[in-house]
């Protein structure tokens, strides 16, 4: 595969190295001459191109038209957005992938049609959230383009569902409790399973219903 990477910072450089090791044809674009030189000594001259990936002349020179994948990993969201959008619109590149530095920008990338985004900030934020024990829902992962979430919740003794059987709980629509971690062991949940104080409950829930699920599991606030 011919993979074009834009942005020769740490992310771009290490990504290029990995892809080279997998025998892909890789070209890394970097606009700073000194950084490009450094990259060339690390990746080889043929894998580094000095130029601004947003310029159509550069895009033409490096062959955006025959790229299988274009990956934009600069530290600036606006640069990543424009490169990916031009790759799609002007050059019909089948797959584009963008690094999104500010997670609140992910939505505009999606609206423009750049579906594949990676936000390190978002990922690290989620990991930190998972480490903080609380009664609220912890996102474990998203499926169906983020419209459905897999979440975990810790049940305290004050939770209104502690002591209830799963079938007796009126869950929000399209929502299911699938798994319980109980004193270090996993329990596959059926309607007969009784939820207990201290359980870590794993549920599948549409994002639109996450709030309703949280209200159901949390102790009512006084």
């Amino acid at each position: 595969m011919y993979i074009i990477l834009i942005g020769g910072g740490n992310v771009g450089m290490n990504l290029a190295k990995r892809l080279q090791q997998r025998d892909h044809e890789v070209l890394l674009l970097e606009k700073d001459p000194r950084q490009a030189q450094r990259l060339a000594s690390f990746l080889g001259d043929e894998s580094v191109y000095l130029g601004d990936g947003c310029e159509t002349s550069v895009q033409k020179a490096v062959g955006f038209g025959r790229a299988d994948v274009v990956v934009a990993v600069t530290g600036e969201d606006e640069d990543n957005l424009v490169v990916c959008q031009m790759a799609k619109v002007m050059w019909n590149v089948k797959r584009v992938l963008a690094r999104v530095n500010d997670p609140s920008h992910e939505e505009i990338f999606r609206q423009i049609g750049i579906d594949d985004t990676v936000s390190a900030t978002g990922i690290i934020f989620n990991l930190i959230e998972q480490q903080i024990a609380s009664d609220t829902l912890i996102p474990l992962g998203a499926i169906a383009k983020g419209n459905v979430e897999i979440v975990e919740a810790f049940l305290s003794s004050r939770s209104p569902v502690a002591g209830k059987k799963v079938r007796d709980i009126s869950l929000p629509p399209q929502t299911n409790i699938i798994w319980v971690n109980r004193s270090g062991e996993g329990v596959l949940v059926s309607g007969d399973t009784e939820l207990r104080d201290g359980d870590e409950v794993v549920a599948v829930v549409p994002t639109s219903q996450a709030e309703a699920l949280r209200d159901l599991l949390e102790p009512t606030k006084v």
Partner: protein
Amino acid sequence: MNVLIFGCGRTGATLGLLLAKNHAVTIIEQNPDALKRLGYKHNCKVVMGSGLDEDVLIRAGIEKCDAFFAVTRGDNTNLMAAQIARLKFGINQVCIKVADPNRAEAYRNIGFFCITPSALLAGMMKDWIDGQPYQPVDTYNILPKELEV
């Protein structure tokens, strides 16, 4: 009309001062020094921050805005802000300053109104020396073949 201008450079400041005579103008700018261009007496509302930040846009009143101008010195910044304005906030009248004529062409092709200062200036200077009347903005966007990619 409620007008939002992102970028208080020479273009943004001049535009703001011109429009403020007849419209409600808000300027978004993150560099306090740039605001000096507006002088001490002006009728523009100023919001400090980046036009790529939705909270800043909302503070600047984008939800009740009729026209959005993206006129910072960064082409990509302008192109991204303009698309947030149109796609997220539904602003129809969006005008983007794009210095790179080829990038401007690409975005014109997908329906954005882009103005390239250098092309406009060169075209108008040519009309001036040729003794031709000035033409509509779009005519100046047609590039000489040598500049096309």
